């Protein structure tokens, strides 16, 4: 709880700092604040063994919530460190940027800690409204404006679905409380409750919009491309992780007993998401757009954990989301540097990077291998968990689809590796700012460390009863 309060107060402090033109203090204050918030969250780890919902069952800060708070806060810090000179260039209102990101983060922490559907809705809205602003933060840029408008329209639309679903669930069960809904579903296994099932379907539609799963994904590429790159990084890592945490929390807590009903739907959505994301990514010429589509396909893999709902699902999503977020942050960081130097982000603009900037090329290679799920990187451990979960529930066809898609994904992830190492071009060496070096080195180390010795995070979240 203290974490949430701190992260809600911090942006107000930042706005005051902006008001008094203390621009240089913004980043240190944010980072220190988030570090303290992270420390507060982790200090609750032991107590979370026996924690009960607080505020009349509104919030529950259990291991699940703390773990996901941890990864979202860490990813946000990494992204903020990258924004050190980046935002001064595109906007004069830097304080706004920091505080809105923190507001979004506050919403995210509500999303991973809710114990009541109203809190889920409030969390999603706090996050989404902040993101609408962030997507359009380049006020003079058409692409950014378009992204913001598209995102706002689509987001509002999907929130409608979600809200309607919540209303129907409330209408049948008479409660917003997750435990109460679970008990209702358990005691009403037989019999037909069309309103309840419609509610579940609408919630699935609403949440699939938010995590960018097909066929509700069509807003992602344009929004990801139009938004400033660091906002894209934030959306495709932190926001996606939070979306899946919220998704999983709801289904794992409430709807296990009616899994027979919604599993086939999610299986189809997962399969579609994988194919659409991967095959479209194959045809992209721009690295950023490729990352946007690959993020869709990763949503497909993460859906496996919900399709094959089991005791270990929380861990699977956590490991996968961590691997995916860290690798994506590397990719976006390198993208920003290359874009600044070359003026565009085509695959050709990476040609010859291996010779001129060996470190940069190496960390990007690690990131691409991790996204492709090659052993000794974190991405492999994530994929391993997803495959194991799906096979344990006998979703063999789904695993075969996943294998085919993992093969397809090699084509586009390796394109950038090929450009960097196997093709030559006359280019100047890139100057890498110190902050970038820190973030890149740290992220690459985390990726390799989780890949080689995942014991530390492989069973972080105790299985749900």
């Amino acid at each position, binding site marked *: 709880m203290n974490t949430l309060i701190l992260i809600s107060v911090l942006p107000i402090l930042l706005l005051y700092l902006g008001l008094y033109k203390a621009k240089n203090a913004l980043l240190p204050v944010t980072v220190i604040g988030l570090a303290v918030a992270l420390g507060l969250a982790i200090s609750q780890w032991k107590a979370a063994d026996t924690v009960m919902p607080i505020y009349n069952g509104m919030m529950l800060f259990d291991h699940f919530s703390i773990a996901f708070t941890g990864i979202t806060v860490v990813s946000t810090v990494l992204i903020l460190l990258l924004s050190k000179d980046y935002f001064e260039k595109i906007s004069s209102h830097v304080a706004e940027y920091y505080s809105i990101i923190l507001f979004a983060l506050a919403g995210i922490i509500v999303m991973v800690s809710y114990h009541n559907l109203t809190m889920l809705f409030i969390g999603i809205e706090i996050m989404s409204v902040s993101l609408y602003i962030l997507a359009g933060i380049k006020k003079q840029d058409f692409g950014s404006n378009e992204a913001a408008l598209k995102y706002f329209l689509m987001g509002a639309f999907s929130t409608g679905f979600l809200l309607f679903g919540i209303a129907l669930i409330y209408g049948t069960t008479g409660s917003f409380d997750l435990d109460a809904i679970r008990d209702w579903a358990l005691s009403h296994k037989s019999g037909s409750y069309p309103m309840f099932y419609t509610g579940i379907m609408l919630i699935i539609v609403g949440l699939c919009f938010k995590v960018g799963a097909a066929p509700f994904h069509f807003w992602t590429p344009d929004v990801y491309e139009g938004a400033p790159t660091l906002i894209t990084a934030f959306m495709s890592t932190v926001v996606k992780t939070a979306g899946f945490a919220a998704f999983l929390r709801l289904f794992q807590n409430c709807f296990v007993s009616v899994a027979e009903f919604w599993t086939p739907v999610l299986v189809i959505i997962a399969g579609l998401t994988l194919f659409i994301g991967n095959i479209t990514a194959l045809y992209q010429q721009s690295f950023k757009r490729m990352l946007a589509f690959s993020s869709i396909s990763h949503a497909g893999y993460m859906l496996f954990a919900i399709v094959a709902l089991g005791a270990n699902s929380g861990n699977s999503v956590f490991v996968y989301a961590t691997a995916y977020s860290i690798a994506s942050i590397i990719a976006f960081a390198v993208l920003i540097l290359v874009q600044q130097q070359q003026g565009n982000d085509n695959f050709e603009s990476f040609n010859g990077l291996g010779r001129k900037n060996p470190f940069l090329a190496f960390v990007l290679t690690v990131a691409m291998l991790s996204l492709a799920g090659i*052993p000794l990187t974190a991405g*492999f451990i994530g994929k*391993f968990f997803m495959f*194991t979960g799906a*096979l344990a529930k006998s979703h063999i066809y789904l695993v075969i689809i996943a*294998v085919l898609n*993992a093969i397809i994904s*090699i*084509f586009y992830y390796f394109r950038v590796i090929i450009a960097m*190492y196997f093709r030559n071009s006359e280019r100047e060496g890139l100057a890498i700012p110190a902050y970038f070096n820190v973030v890149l080195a740290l992220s690459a180390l985390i990726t390799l460390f989780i890949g080689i010795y995942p014991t530390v995070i492989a069973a972080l979240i105790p299985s749900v009863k």
Partner: protein
Amino acid sequence: MTVSILIFLPLLAAAALFLVKNDWAKHIALVATLAELVITGVLISKFNPNTSFPQMDSTAPWIPQIGAYFVVALDGLNIIPVLLTALVLPLIILSTYKHQYDNRAKAFYALILFMQAGMTTVFLAMDGFLFYVGWEAALIPIYFICGMWGGENRVKITLKFFIYTFAGSLFMLAGLIYLYLHNPNGTFDSSDFYNLQLSLKEQSWLFWAFFLAFAIKVPIFPFHTWQPDTYTEAPAAGSMLLSGVMLKMGLYGMVRWMIPILPLGFNQWYPLAITLAVVGIVYASIIAFKQKDGKRLIAYSSIAHVGLISAAILALNWNGLQGAMIQMLSHGINVVGLFIVWDIISRKMNTRDITQLGGIAKVAPVFATCFLIITLGAVALPLTNGFVGEFLLLSGIYDYNIILVAIAGLTIILGAVYMLRMYKGVMQGPTNDLTIQFTDVTGTDKWVLIIISALVIVIGVYPQPILHLSDAGVRDFIHFMTEKMSATGSNTLPVTK
């Protein structure tokens, strides 16, 4: 002393490379691989070949939550591949001494050492998860070696190679996870896997999941289409690593991870698998006839040779398996030798076209002698290393089916014809304007060729120590399989003969 040192030594050496100057990289790599060879020699001298129990093993928890352990051991089945890896790597590194890698030398040698660690892990692992990680860890470095230092079409061809092998291994991963989920102990331990009781239907699917991975790696017809292009476009050292050691991962995988785990699936499908292997021998031999590019010719001849080894492994009897073991070693040595020969020719002559060459024997006697010895080893002349292996392989297949052995045996003759024609085309006849400039091998080139020629003859004349190493392991393996098959009530397996 445990065998895990064989995995960590190359890794440490690869890390150490980044601390030195590029000029020093090759020396450090050579010293590291020689040290690895010496340690392997010491381990083998302490190895007790009269038992099939795993020896010098070490077990450490790795990811206990999912039941993955770091379990490595040496036994009669993996001792030959381990020996091969340790033996061939210094030769490969020595053969690169006359190449220039400029400011990327460190990366080049680090990748080779990293690959050595991966391949050694594959051979030593007794845990399925570790085996898979090693399997992929060996693939990444060779991809970069081929992509960064390969020929003109390297980008497309190495990607095809990578996709092919990666596809195979993903199906194998799914198979391994399936076995793991059905293991009541919840581990990836190979001996647990051996005790699983899966239905015929499950085993049939799993058989193909594993066979696909191994057949692509070896490669067995019709999964070979990546191989000739990749071997031709790869840099010399890359071709040697791929053909000398890496393809043995597939052969070894069948013995350790496919046949004993899936006896029913194997029983159902091995006739088809053997037929594919034999078809591959004929097919590759015929194509090899037509090749003008020396490296490509070696690539096709390699498909034929490993097709024979695969067929003998799948026939599953003592002769065949014992032959496969020694032939893995001999083929590794011979094919590395042949690729070194062609590396020297193309470095000196700037061409690999056999029709443009000729008469080199007159100007380069040392080179000619070594080339001849290696060629004779490859065509399995008695008293060379190839003979022992091929004799056992053919007698193994003979025990299974006479028609198949007749076809396979015929291609040995074809093999002799195209290999000797290659030798004749390059070395004999009159010299021409190009080949008159050929200077005899000197320095490292000379020593590598002499060492390989010596190995060809020594193993050919006195193969007993090598055969002895794997003898008990192979015998017990066949015994184990016989019992397993009779317990399941199926007696169609060739092993019962």
